Every structure is written in structure tokens, then in C-alpha cells.
């Protein structure tokens, strides 16, 4: 039986803390998850790219999923990302997420293959029919037709086929691509959750997006919550201020994501450790630069320090 879940607001996607020897820090991860819930996260989503998803082993991903579900303890919904390089792994992770009592899975057809629309369809149907959990898909179109793109037509077919298909993480950040999906999905399945990949929400909220999987929430949860409250109140002036500030943060952090972000979190008193190779760990110079910018943006002064 499909349990309805409510996905709305700036939902937090915790990073994966590592110990100094680069091993997965399960204890730190539980603190990270709890930090987000206590600071108003309306949902927890893990492990997204921000959590170095593809640099975790399948065993680590299962362990993390279990820790997330246990730590959140049903205070808010938990979605588990099951995208991998190999569809067999994704299927395994999806079944595990259900067994671990997660509230939803987020999936995508395996990366790096430039799959055809038919291949994406088959992939999503295979994974979504292997579980009874609500399923979200991840639209990740890159330039020049690369990436994994969900067109409006593909979305329509999947909604038609899958009763447990409840939403889309959209990382197109593009008016036309967004509307191709939303005008089909929101009319076929009212309540279909369109969740922005990063909080580019001012452009999408008026068009029916219900929230975002957060990037900047790891260091600025107060700003995220203020932003969403402004959107809900239709206070566009405040929403613009918040959006432009978040946009600045995204510019700071998108380079070699999530290295800089993890560096800034350490600065805010949350020791989440280094970033696994091939991504770099933020250097001292980079941290100094970040400190200056975060101060200028009034983040260091207004956002929570420590756990």
C-alpha cells in the first residue's frame, strides 16, 4: 500500500561526513541528519551528489540509508537516492531502501550512457515496479543532448504506467524544459512533486514547483527557511533578496562541488571531514576566501554554528 508523503519546502540533502582517513563517518552522519531536522528541514534526501554519492560503496550507501531512517525516526520523510553507474546496483539499493523503511526513492537511469528515451523509460519502470515505495525521478539534462533528460512525453508515459510515481527532481533550471514537464505532470497527477535540484525556486515556485533539494542548506538553513516562507507568503521582494543571496552561495560552492561546501561547514563548527578523490578537499587558501565571502554575505553571523 502506497503511503502518501508530503514533500514541500527546502528539503535538506546532507553531505556524507568522512573521517580523516576518508572512511565514512556514520556517527558524524547521524549528527548531520539530526542537525538538518532540528533546523527545520521538511524532508531528508540522501545521498545526492552533494553527498559524494558515486564515491560511496554500495555497502556504505546501504549503511547510510539505515542511519538516516533511524536518525530521522519519522519526524519528516526520508528519500533515498538510488542512482548509480550500474542498473543492477540501483535495483539493489531501491529494494534495500524499502526494507530499511525509507519513505521514497529517487532514481535515474544510469549515468554516462546518453540513454534514449525508451531506455530511460525501461530503466525507471524496472526499478519503480521492484518496490512499493513512492518513486521520484531525477531529470538531469546536460548541454548538447547529453545527460539523462525526461521530456514531457516521457513523463506522461511514466505517470500513466506507474501509480507510485510521485515526483521529479528537476535540474534543468530552464523555463522551457521545466514547463514541458510541469504542464503535463501537474495536470495528469495533481500533487505531483516537482523539486528543484538546487534552490532556484523563485523562477519555478510560481509554476508549481513544491520545493528544492537544498545545496546551501548545509551552511545557511535559516536563509533557506526564510526564502521558502517568503515564497509561500508571495512576498516577492524578500524572496528575490533570498534568491540572489542563495545564487551567490551557489556560485561559491558549485566549483568542485561539494569540496568548498564541506570546507565551509567545518568553518561553521561541523567537522564533516575531507572530500573523497577524485574530488579535491578545499585548501587553506580556498577556506580563507570562503570565510571572507561568507562574512560579506552575512552568513557567518546569522546561521547556526556547531551541531
Amino acid at each position, binding site marked *: 500500500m502506497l503511503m502518501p508523503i508530503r514533500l514541500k519546502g527546502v528539503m535538506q540533502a546532507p553531505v556524507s561526513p568522512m573521517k580523516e582517513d576518508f572512511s565514512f563517518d556514520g556517527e558524524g552522519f547521524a549528527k548531520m541528519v539530526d542537525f538538518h531536522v532540528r533546523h527545520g528541514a521538511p524532508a531528508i534526501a540522501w545521498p545526492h551528489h552533494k553527498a559524494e554519492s558515486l564515491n560511496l560503496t554500495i555497502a556504505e550507501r546501504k549503511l547510510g540509508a539505515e542511519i538516516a531512517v533511524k536518525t530521522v525516526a519519522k519526524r519528516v520523510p526520508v528519500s533515498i537516492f538510488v542512482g548509480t553507474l550500474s542498473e543492477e546496483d540501483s535495483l539493489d539499493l531501491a529494494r534495500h531502501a524499502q526494507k530499511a523503511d525509507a519513505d521514497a526513492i529517487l532514481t535515474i537511469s544510469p549515468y554516462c550512457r546518453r540513454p534514449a528515451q525508451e531506455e530511460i523509460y525501461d530503466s525507471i519502470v524496472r526499478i519503480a515496479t521492484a518496490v512499493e515505495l513512492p518513486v521520484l525521478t531525477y531529470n538531469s539534462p546536460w548541454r548538447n543532448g547529453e545527460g539523462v533528460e525526461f521530456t514531457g512525453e516521457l513523463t506522461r508515459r511514466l505517470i500513466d504506467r506507474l501509480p507510485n510515481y510521485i515526483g521529479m527532481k528537476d535540474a534543468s533550471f*530552464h*523555463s522551457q524544459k521545466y514547463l514541458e514537464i510541469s504542464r503535463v505532470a501537474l495536470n495528469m497527477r495533481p500533487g505531483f512533486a516537482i523539486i528543484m535540484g538546487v534552490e*532556484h525556486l523563485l*523562477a519555478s515556485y*510560481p509554476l508549481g514547483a513544491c520545493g528544492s533539494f537544498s545545496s546551501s542548506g548545509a551552511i545557511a538553513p535559516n536563509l533557506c527557511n526564510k526564502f521558502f516562507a517568503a515564497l509561500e507568503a508571495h512576498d*516577492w521582494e524578500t524572496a528575490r533578496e533570498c*534568491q540572489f543571496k542563495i*545564487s551567490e552561495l551557489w556560485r561559491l560552492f558549485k566549483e568542485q562541488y561539494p569540496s568548498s561546501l564541506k570546507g565551509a561547514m567545518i568553518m561553521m563548527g561541523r567537522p564533516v571531514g575531507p572530500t573523497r578523490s577524485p574530488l579535491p578537499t578545499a585548501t587553506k587558501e580556498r577556506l580563507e576566501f570562503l570565510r571572507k565571502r561568507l562574512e560579506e554575505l552575512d552568513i557567518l553571523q546569522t546561521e547556526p554554528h556547531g551541531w
Partner: protein
Amino acid sequence: MKTLQPGLVHAPVTPFRRDQSVDYATYAKVIEFHLRNGAEALALPMPEGEDMSLRDGELRELLEFAVKQVKGRVPVLAHVSDAGTSIAVARAIHAEKTGAAAILSHPPYFWHPRPAMVVEHLARIGAAVKLPFYVCTPPVESPGTELMSDMVMQLIERVPNLVGVVDASLDFVFMEEVISGGRRLRPGFQLLAGRDYLVSASALGGNGAVVPLAGIAPNLVRQVYDLCRQQKFLEARGKQEDIAHLHHLVREAGASGLKDGLAGIKCAMAAMGRECGVPRPPVRPLGEVERGRFEDAVQSLAFLKAEPRGW
């Protein structure tokens, strides 16, 4: 320089006769149609006006004709993009002499120069005139170099008459960066939403819009524009979805690998009782079967019932 606020800018198609010459008699009708149906300014010839298919002399003649036809009733914005810097510069100077109200240009066609060279190309076009200057993002899938927000910031610092960006990228991140960063450097810096997607750009603080679908559905475009001006962004959603639906039909029609929509726009204009011929080669018009199917699809759109038929 008094600040130009072009508002709702219609982008007319360019009609051709069977012998491929510009059909000026019909072009006059196109212009009058736009002026009667809510255009606060005209931008021409935009990509939907087949600027690339027109020769240099024709581009100049077309602008001269339009300025004469409009007779100052609304501002005419001249689009002068080209591959070569000097060609675009010369056309910008001509547009200024002809009486255009502003110059629009995007990064050069065809070449893929480094960002610094694109900045140089655009800076020279802007510097060649005293008119307000807008840089445009090229239609997203077009070949050529992308316009990045950093390049816009550099241009603001170099080109005093650069007043804004016409955004066809439809990219949320680009819009956020241009509006917030641009206004820090130049208060009042404008972003005009391109390609009929108004809600996101307006919510972010954009100023106006350049709307190629106005030749088909001027009322719908006007309604979304007015709602956005009143900051009623949620109320605009349904109508913006209608525009997206029409946009989808138009772009999916035809053989263009870029889905440029040129064949679809003209066919939809004809279906609305405004025959403008077919696009110039090499763009293929719709075949007979596809045309029939396309016209049926257009006729079945309930929201087009509220739109003007004929001229």
C-alpha cells in the same frame, strides 16, 4: 540618454513571396497587426524573423521599411547579429541612422571564439552607436558561443550604453546572476524575457519580454505579461502553460535539427488567417500531411479561440 523601457516587445515574422523576395505588402500587414494587438515595441528581424536568411542589403531595407511603416508609434529595436564584427558594426550604425530605438546583438554566428573575443565583438557593436544596446543570448541550441553572466558583467563595465540583456537562454541561473549582478554594477539594468517564457524571468525581477508567438496569440501573451507586471505570478501559471503548449507544437513541427520553429510559426499564422508564406530555404516548410496534422492540432487548442483571426 532617457531610459528606454520597451515593455512587451513583439517579434514579427518576415513574409516571403514564392520567388523568395521579401513580401513587403504582407509585412506591412504583419506590422499593423502587431501594433493593433498590444505591441509596445517591435524587435526585428529576430531569429523567428529569419534574420540569418536575409542578406545584408535586405536586412537594411527591411528595417528602413519597418521604421517608415511604424512612423514612431512604438520604438523599433534593430537586431544586428552576424558572424563578422565589422559587418554587425556597420549594420548597427545603419540602424541608428535609420531611426531604430535600440540595437540588439548576440554573440557571433558560427565561430566559437574564446569568451574575451565574444566580449570584444559585442563591445565594438555597442560602442559603434549611441543608442541603448541590448545583448541577447543566442537561441539555446544554436551553434556559436554561449553568453555567460561573467561576460555580461565585463560588458557592463566596458559599454556605457549597454542597458540590458534579452534572454533566450531561459536558464534560471543565468537570469539570477544577470539580474542581481548586473544591477549591482548598473542600477536599472534590464532583463527582457525571451521566447515567450515570462513568468520565471518576471518573478526574478525581469523588466519586459520579447515575444515571437505574439503573431499567433497576442491576447494570451498580453495576459501573461499583464499578470507578471502586477506580480501575480501564480495566477499567470495556467496561461504560461498554454503558451508552453503552443511553443511545443510550433517547435516540434518541421525538419529543423535545432527545432527552430520557423516552419511551425508561419503555418500557425496561416491557420489563424494570417498567411505569411513559408520560410526561406534551407528551412523546409511543412509537407502537406504534416501541415494538415499541425493545423488540426492548432485548431484544437481551446485557448486560441480567444485570439484574433485574420488581419
